[in-house]
């Protein structure tokens, strides 16, 4: 059975019982024709008179308990319901004849005056008040802690007490409902003793019988003693016995009745029921006394002792006056004196619940109820003051004026308000101490974490406060890291220890919800289960999710309370509030962390840009017959493009390398530097660009997989005006030869894959012979792919046209012209990629 079903069943039982109790009250306090007789509800072939109300028509007519009513108002009646029909037809104030059997067959006819009196009297009202008090206390406790076994039992006990007081200890009536009510009350009488004893065997902690000297070693006790000890230590068999005894007694009574042997009744129930109730009450008191003297925790001991005191004072008179006197001495005259002190039982429980949070309930009587009581007291004072004033001013004309009362009211009200405020503080202190502590702790925490930017210190502070405010043996905070892991922020440990990846748990906790017991979590993945098991093995009992804007930030894990008590609703509320505070603090700390990271990153980027800039040649090489112009415009702080000239000592050759690394920023920049160095180093020993690329490709491939670099390596011989080249992933340079009429792309090599894309690529070399006046234009794809706001790329054709347009004139002007054309095309759109180009003109 699920917890929810269990709870619903208990509530259903409770409210059904309450309905029966209400019916009983309605029966007792409805004005109907009444003869003052309490019938025995189980009467057959006549109505047995159980009791006769003093001063009633029946008493005046001489009807006595034990008489059997055979007829009412000229009709024969067999049962209380027959009698009810006849009575309902009678007129209030009239005298109607009753046929009474006094002994077995001695019948007399007596006239009985019918009154309109209600059957319920102050005694019954008092008993009903006790029952209803029990019910509401039980209901309040149960609604707070429905999953607690002792609380469920307590609720059951309270409901049974309600039925006992309202339905069993009531005078019978003729109404049809009476039999139903009385039967319900009788059933409660069967079950109540067992539940009473059961409750005190598990409250405040399940009893275990410890035999002196047993601690010396297991197995020391003989088998019989061991079996007895196990049986008495809350074994299922013990509870079975406790619950089985009352039905066995009732079956015996039933058998005796069937066999024709007399069964003595007390208040309509067999005397054995009452005797059993007495025995169970005494045993229950014994169990409670045992707890009061043996509990380790002094505070708990004090609580239980006060409950014991109230229960003893409430129960013992009932055992004596309500059970022993009637059963042993056949005297039922003093039963009420046994019942009267029983009000102390619910009151004691209520006091213990309010004062000590007994059964883990913070406040049984809500603030409003207390204040209502307080207001009633104050208004009683007000009424007293008015009465006093009336007496005082009675002789004066002033008092006869209507305005006097109004004026007096205006004077008194501010005084009463002052009085109310004065009273409120001590009441709060008396009944809401725990709440004050929580509020104070929350205030301190909110002040402390508001200005705290260190996640570690926030965690330290929160866990420390939780430990002190909730009086738990330990607390730990886990924060969800950027990669989704839970990270423990342990106190006293400056280092962060990585928690498990607990996806199931995180998913489970993703919705903002109440803190819940560790064992209530059932994640479906093994890591979460392992994580929870680990927490449990370390003594953690409660998890509280830290949620910010429906995003799980982390969780708080709490160990058991020092008092061993369960976490109640008030604790959970406090913890939830605290988790909300923590969520805000964590988010703030995260943001602060983020900002710090970004600042550091920006600083690193600036450094990287400086380094990258320093890698570009500060000046162009000087070679007779050649002149250069160009540059690089990075799209971000640090670009992926690069170029460089490689000079060989004493050689007319000049190497030129231009590259574009996949990705941007610092990693791309680092690869760029590495590629440059590889090419630079390789070029010293390898003249053929194709071969150089083949070698370099392998090394670049090793550096970082899935990162590659587009390179073009051009080896220019200024003496012969020839240029051999290899191109991997780079666009083909343009050659503007005036005699050709416009720019043309150089002949492409066979293999043009970027370097580092594959391990082995058979790059080949092409060669071109230059002429004076030739203009070579090397560029990266940033130029051709520069896009306008409508994502239209600048393109190869436009670049060729631009080059053709600006080819004449100074080389710098050509460069500026081409850049101007590209910028014009791009307009306000963001620069998509680094733009790097180099112009080389053959002048000789």
């Amino acid at each position: 059975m699920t917890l929810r079903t269990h709870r619903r069943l208990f509530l259903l039982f409770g409210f059904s019982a309450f309905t029966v109790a209400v019916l009983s009250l309605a029966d007792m306090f409805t004005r109907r024709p009444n003869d003052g007789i309490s019938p025995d509800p189980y009467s057959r072939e006549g109505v047995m008179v159980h009791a006769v109300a003093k001063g009633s028509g029946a008493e005046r007519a001489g009807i006595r308990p034990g008489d059997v009513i055979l007829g009412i108002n000229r009709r024969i009646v067999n049962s209380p319901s027959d009698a009810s029909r006849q009575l309902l037809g009678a007129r209030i104030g009239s005298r109607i004849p009753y046929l009474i059997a006094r002994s077995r067959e001695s019948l007399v006819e007596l006239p009985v005056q019918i009154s309109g009196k209600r059957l319920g009297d102050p005694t019954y009202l008092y008993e009903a008040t006790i029952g209803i008090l029990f019910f509401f206390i039980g209901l309040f406790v149960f609604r707070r802690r429905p999953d607690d076994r002792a609380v469920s039992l307590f609720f059951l006990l309270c409901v049974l007490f309600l039925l006992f007081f309202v339905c069993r200890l009531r005078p019978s009536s003729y109404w049809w409902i009476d039999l139903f009510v009385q039967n319900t009350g009788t059933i409660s009488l069967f079950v109540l003793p067992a539940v009473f004893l059961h409750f005190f065997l598990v409250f405040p902690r399940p009893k275990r019988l410890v035999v002196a000297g047993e601690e010396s070693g297991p197995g020391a006790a003989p088998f019989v003693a061991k079996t007895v000890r196990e049986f008495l230590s809350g074994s299922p068999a013990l509870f079975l016995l406790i619950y089985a005894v009352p039905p066995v007694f009732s079956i015996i009574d039933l058998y005796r009745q069937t066999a024709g042997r007399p069964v003595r009744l007390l208040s309509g129930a067999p005397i054995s029921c009452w005797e059993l109730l007495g025995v169970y009450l005494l045993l229950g008191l014994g169990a409670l006394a045992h707890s009061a003297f043996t509990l380790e925790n002094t505070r708990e001991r004090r609580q239980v002792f006060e409950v014991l005191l109230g229960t003893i004072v409430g129960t013992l008179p009932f055992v004596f006056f309500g059970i022993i006197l009637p059963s042993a001495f056949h005297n039922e005259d003093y039963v009420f004196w046994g019942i009267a002190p029983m009000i102390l039982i619910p009151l004691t429980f209520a006091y213990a619940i309010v004062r000590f949070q007994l059964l883990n309930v913070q406040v049984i009587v809500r603030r409003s109820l207390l204040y209502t009581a307080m207001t009633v007291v104050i208004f009683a004072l007000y009424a007293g003051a008015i009465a006093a004033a009336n007496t005082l001013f009675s002789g004066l004309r002033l008092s006869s004026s209507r305005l006097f009362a109004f004026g007096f009211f205006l004077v008194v009200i501010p005084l009463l308000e002052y009085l109310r405020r004065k009273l409120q503080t001590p009441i709060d202190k008396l009944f809401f101490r725990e709440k004050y502590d929580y509020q104070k702790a929350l205030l301190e925490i909110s002040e402390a974490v508001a200005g705290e930017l260190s996640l570690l210190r926030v965690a330290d502070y929160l866990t420390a406060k939780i430990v002190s405010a909730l009086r738990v043996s330990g607390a730990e905070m886990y924060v969800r890291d950027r990669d989704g892991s839970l990270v423990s922020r342990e106190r006293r440990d400056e280092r962060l220890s990585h928690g498990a990846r607990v996806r199931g748990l995180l998913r489970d906790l993703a919705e903002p919800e109440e803190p819940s017991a560790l064992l209530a979590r059932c994640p479906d993945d093994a890591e979460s289960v392992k994580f929870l098991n680990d927490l449990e093995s370390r003594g953690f009992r409660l998890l509280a999710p830290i949620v910010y804007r429906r995003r799980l930030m982390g969780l708080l894990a709490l160990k058991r309370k020092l008092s061993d008590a369960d976490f109640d609703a008030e604790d959970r509320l406090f913890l939830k509030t605290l988790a909300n505070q923590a969520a805000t603090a964590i988010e703030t700390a995260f943001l602060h962390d983020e900002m710090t990271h970004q600042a550091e990153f920006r600083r690193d980027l600036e450094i990287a840009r400086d380094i990258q800039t320093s890698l570009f040649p500060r000046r162009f090489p000087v070679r007779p017959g050649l002149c250069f112009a160009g540059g690089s415009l990075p799209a971000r702080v640090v670009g992926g493009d690069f170029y460089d000239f490689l000079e060989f000592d004493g050689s007319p050759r000049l190497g030129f390398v231009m590259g574009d690394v996949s990705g941007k920023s610092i990693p791309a920049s680092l690869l760029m530097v590495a590629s440059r160095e590889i090419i630079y180093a390789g070029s010293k020993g390898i003249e053929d660009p194709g071969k150089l690329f083949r070698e370099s490709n392998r090394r670049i491939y090793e550096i970082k997989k899935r990162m590659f670099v587009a390179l073009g390596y051009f080896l220019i011989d200024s003496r012969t005006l020839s240029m051999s080249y290899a191109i991997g992933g780079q666009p083909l340079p343009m050659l503007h030869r005036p005699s050709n009429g416009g720019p043309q792309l150089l002949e492409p090599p066979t293999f043009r894959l970027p370097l580092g894309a594959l391990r082995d690529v058979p790059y080949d070399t092409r060669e071109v012979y230059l002429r004076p006046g030739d203009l070579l234009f090397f560029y990266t794809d940033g130029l051709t792919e520069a896009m306008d706001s409508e994502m239209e790329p600048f393109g190869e054709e436009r670049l060729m046209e631009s080059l053709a347009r600006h080819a004449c004139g100074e080389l710098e002007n050509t460069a500026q012209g081409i850049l101007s054309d590209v910028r014009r095309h791009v307009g306000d759109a963001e620069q998509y990629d680094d733009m790097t180009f180099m112009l080389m003109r053959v002048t000789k």
Partner: protein
Amino acid sequence: MTRRTKILIGGGAILVAAAAAAAFLLTPRRTVTTTSAEAYQEYLHGREDYLRWYFREARGHYESALEKDPHFVMAMVELVNLEYKESHVVNRPLLDRAQKDRDLVTRRERLALDLTRAFAADKPAEALRLARVLKDDYRDPLGYRILCEAAVNDGRAQEADAIYREWLKADPNNASAYNDMGYSAAYQGHYPEAIANLKRYAFMAPDQANPFDSLGEIYAANGQYDLAIENLNRALQIKPDFYLAFDHLGMAYEGKGDTAQAREYYEKYYAQVKNDMDRFHAANQLLRLALRDKDFARAREVLRRIAAQKLPYDIDPVPLLEAQILAYEGKNTEAREELKAFALPAKSDPKIQKYVNRIVQLAEGRIEFNSGNYEEAAGILREALKKEGSDQSLEDQSMRLRYQAMLARAEAHLGNFAQAERLVADNRRYNPRQRETEEAAAEIDRLKSKS
């Protein structure tokens, strides 16, 4: 629609359905056919009054029901039965009228109608069969009534009691049951129970003379003569011409020993009765009183009155009664002769024959006892008083007790004191104050002390 709304609507629907089902189940199903609700109420009132033996009121209700619904078959059936109960005459036109609508009514009504018709046609077996079905299937009062009356008439007292008890569970306000069960208990000597039953009847119908008369009769038979007189006087207050009360008052005063008052009431009874059989009975009471007083002249005067009555089956009781007078006079030989002259007509009812034979035996016993032939007397009386079930009437019981006292005396004379005392004790269980029993007890003591 929210979950809460769904729950509220669902819960409401369940409650309404439950209430409707409860109303349907708790509403009594009508098994009688009428177009008028008022007629049905009149029928129910009539049935209730009938059970309480308020026949006139019951008749009024049934007639009213028939006015409101002329085709109300069950009202017709009840009225026919009521009229038969009162006058022993079957209202055939009404029965035929009911028969016309037989096919339009329920099974229960058809059964009741068929039962009444079977009864009217003198088919007791068929009537009893139908009565049993009506009782078992519908717990119908008519079924119970017929079965009970049949059991009572046949002397099956215990069976009658069982059916009455069952009927009382269905309807505790049943005058017939209390009256008959009261008498039945009295016949068996269970007087407290008999009185309790009749007190219930008296409580139900304090304005009827019958329950008080019955109570008086039973008190008288039980020797509680003052209470008997009180109740019988109350019966006469209610109905001054209730002639049975005079007879019972006579018995009460006779038991009390006030023979003058007893004679006065027997005479009143004799004067009030209408038919020969009742007059014979009244004269018999007077004759017994005269013989008790040994006023033989008066006895013979009463015998002359008896001789003027015509009894069923042409029985002539004069020789038998003359023999009794002679026996009281001590003329035993003449008495024997006279007794021999008595003969029952051959065609008389077997029940009557048995009864009269017993009377003859008892007379013979008295003659032998008077003659001092105790052994002979004891033998005859033992035979005559052999018990076959309970007594058939209180008068029968009273006579049995008188002769049982005589038997006790005969047994004592024979020295069978234990048997004699047992007979006296048995008598006292029925009537602790009967004169003959006390005389027998005294004689037994005397003989016992002498022996």
